[in-house]
């Protein structure tokens, strides 16, 4: 079956294609501005520069995880569509594929973290300076050879290599199908999506342990990878909704992405708001109930020094309010309503990553946090620039995918 369509209607809007350099420049400027603000973090004490470096390093990591988790969400979305042999999502799949293709670029963004390790700095990962460590738990993790800069770097390279390779393999077949329309390309992806999900699950879990959990190496939570995954999936669907809405507003992909697709992305976003709450609460409940000092300390840090406002704030902001806000199908089928909650989800996702990382950098103070926010916004712009760079000149819908007709006629049942 071949569809008649205007090739221009599935391309990025003309004006967007030139935005990449501007967005990257703007993003870098904002991150640099964030660094300038973080100089206030020292508060004039004798080790002010150390404190501001520590703040900036944590801020950088939190903002990196903010966008990285979205890209990982995209990768998982692609894999799971093929595992489930889903038809409904075909017309939005390419956008997710392009988001997934930003992972190699994000490896470059992660490079400063590695460089900091080899500069022998412990601003972010205190385990990088074993001579300063007093905790026997961290010492054990260093002695066993896990938390060392060499092995940490090797693992980070491995994660990025795995994700990039999986992404590249799936994207390549998707693009080939644009030319040939070969069903075999879909079958091949269906065949390998399952094993890739296993690789994905393990690597994301370990990446979360390495990158985020090890900033407080005394603490441990086996559910931590799932936590990052749940948060990232929610943010990914929010991003998808916003990109799709923006494209349609610019006059593209109007007939290809229907209100049913928005409804479904809204459902997924709603579902992952719930899933995040479930995971976050599961982690809290076990530590609260166990009440063991080495486990509760992580929460202690997050419930003192001003961070309690953020931590308690996440309960309504990340769960109760958006849960009630997106529970109705009328909201999920309403463009403005969906856009509002997607922006909300992205903001609370940033707050969530802040909650995970920033309290370890010291007490909450306003001016450096402003810099952290600017940095987060800058990071989002850089991420968007990567997406636009990949999307320029690429069809935004896999027009020859054999499952496309299924996606176009798909309708949610009236409940």
């Amino acid at each position: 079956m071949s569809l008649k369509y205007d090739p221009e209607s599935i391309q990025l809007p003309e004006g967007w294609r030139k935005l990449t350099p501007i967005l990257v420049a703007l993003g870098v400027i904002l991150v640099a501005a964030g660094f300038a603000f973080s100089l206030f973090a020292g508060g004039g004490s004798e080790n002010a520069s150390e404190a501001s470096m520590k703040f900036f390093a944590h801020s950088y990591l939190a903002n990196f995880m903010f966008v990285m988790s979205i890209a990982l969400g995209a990768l998982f979305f692609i894999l799971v569509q093929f595992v489930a042999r889903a038809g409904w999502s075909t017309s939005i799949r390419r956008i997710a594929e392009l988001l997934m293709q930003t992972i190699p670029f994000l490896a470059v963004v992660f490079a400063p973290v590695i460089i900091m390790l080899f500069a022998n700095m412990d601003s972010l990962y205190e385990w990088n300076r074993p001579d300063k460590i007093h905790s026997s738990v961290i010492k054990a993790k260093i002695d066993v050879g896990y938390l060392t800069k060499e092995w940490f770097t090797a693992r980070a390279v491995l994660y990025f290599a795995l994700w990039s390779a999986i992404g590249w393999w799936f994207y390549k077949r998707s693009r080939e199908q644009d030319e040939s329309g070969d069903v075999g390309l879909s079958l091949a992806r269906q065949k390998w999506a399952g094993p890739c999900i296993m690789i994905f699950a393990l690597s994301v879990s370990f990446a979360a342990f390495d990158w985020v959990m090890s900033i407080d190496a005394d603490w441990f939570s086996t559910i931590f990878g799932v936590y990052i995954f749940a948060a990232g999936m929610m943010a990914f669907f929010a991003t998808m909704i916003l990109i799709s809405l923006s494209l349609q507003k610019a006059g593209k992909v109007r007939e290809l992405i229907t209100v049913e697709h928005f409804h479904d992305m809204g459902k997924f976003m709603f579902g992952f708001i719930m899933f995040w709450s479930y995971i976050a609460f599961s982690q809290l409940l076990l530590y609260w109930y166990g009440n063991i000092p080495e486990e509760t300390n992580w929460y202690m840090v997050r419930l003192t020094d001003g961070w309690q406002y953020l931590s308690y704030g996440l309960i309504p902001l990340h769960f109760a309010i958006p849960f009630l806000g997106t529970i109705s199908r009328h909201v999920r089928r309403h463009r403005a309503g969906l856009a509002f909650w997607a922006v909300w989800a992205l903001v609370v996702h940033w707050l969530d990553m802040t909650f995970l990382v920033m309290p370890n950098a010291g007490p909450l103070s306003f001016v450096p946090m402003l810099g952290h926010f600017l940095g987060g916004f800058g990071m989002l712009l850089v991420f968007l620039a990567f997406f636009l760079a990949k999307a320029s000149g690429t069809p935004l819908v896999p027009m020859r995918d054999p499952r496309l007709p299924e996606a176009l006629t798909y309708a949610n049942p009236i409940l």
Partner: protein
Amino acid sequence: MSEHKPTKNVETRPPKACGWMAEFTNEHDLLEAAKKVRDAGYTKTDAFTPFPVHGIDHALGIKPTILPFIVLCAGLTGLCTALLMQWWMNGVDYRYIISGKPFTITPASIPVSFELTILFSAFTSVLGMLALNGLPKFSNPVFTNPKFDRATNDRFFLYVDAADKYYNRDSVRELLGSVHPTSLDEVIEDSSPSHLPRPIWLGALLLVLAGLIPAAIVLNMRASFSDLPRWHVFFDMDFQPKKKPQQTTTIFADGRIMRPQVPGTIAKGQLEEQDPFYLGHDPLKMSLADYRRAVFVSATDQDPSGDAKPADPKPADPKPADPKPADDAKPAEQSPAPVASAPATPPAAVPPVGDGGQAPKYAWLEKLPIEVTDEHMNLGKVKYETYCAACHGYSGFGDGLVAKRALSLLQDTWTPPTSLHADRVQKQPVGQIFHTISKGQGKMASYASSLSPKERWAVVLYVKALQRSRNANIDDVPVEQRSSLTTAAAPSGAESK
């Protein structure tokens, strides 16, 4: 269901028409027809298809259901029920300390709240779906047409009900005819009997009756007597392979399942108990008098001389009939009952003390370690009346309700409670009474878990007051008030304090 056999006894009126049913061979025709019927304004319509057809709801013009809203309300009800329940149970009605956690709403309340939210929502979804669909429904007029059987196989049906606001027999036929159905039939009322067949009634009745059997057995057993042992429905729960307090065992040489504290060790919370305030006697003083015994007493809380007694019970009860063994504190009694004390009962240390004539084992406190105030007196009165009066009686004569009841039942194993006004008890120093409350005596159990040390001392204070009030003589009354006593008819014991 396809066959319908008109019953003979039904009067011969023409069967009522219920609507029109159009048959189609594929879902596209059905969807087109449904849209036409919807646009013509009919709402009492239905479609029957062998598989779910996407878009049929829209084509039929089915309005979104209010079920989600009902489920939301039910979920919120479940949530509130769970929170209220936990707040009431854990926070108000039955406070129970669990590793120092707060009593009322805590993170631990969330799983229960979540589960109840889901439970209420799930039940409401299913039951609400049934109710909104008018289910269960045993029959439908469309079943009367044999063609309809193919609705589960390869045919698609569109049905317009005669109950529709705009229904007109001819115009509906015309409308349905215009969409080219394979066939178009008028649906006629199912004239077969509408009541349930008798076997089903019978089966249901049997089930209900069978369900009454267990209840009947329970009722019968509660209302009758039997010499047979009871039924053990859950045998392994009734007889668990474990030991309970006071049982015997072959594992340990002494045959006791309850292990004494290892000599020379101190358990958590016991360190403070070397203080006379917690003991009723002064171990330091005792150790000065007899070091070896003091070590033994503090390590085992047993008196060496008392321990020796059971082996040779006779000397222990010098005055058998009268419940006045040497060392009987206020409550307690076990003292040797008229029946020769069974060898199994180690008459918990009945060592001669004080009036027993031998050297005192303990250096009893002679003075109350708490102040004699109204507050302590009231505390002692409340606790005495709660824990002691049941056996010893409100006045301390050993005539509590339990004792009276036991006497009236003529229980020969019953040991009457000691009167607190017996000479022997009156002579006991306060520390010894305290020790009796703390450790128990004879059949009297320890009250250390129910009464804090301070409360125990308050009870001792109250017991002392009782003893004084019940054994007062005229000298106890202030001189200036003696005249009022002599004028009073009956000299009832002056309530001191």
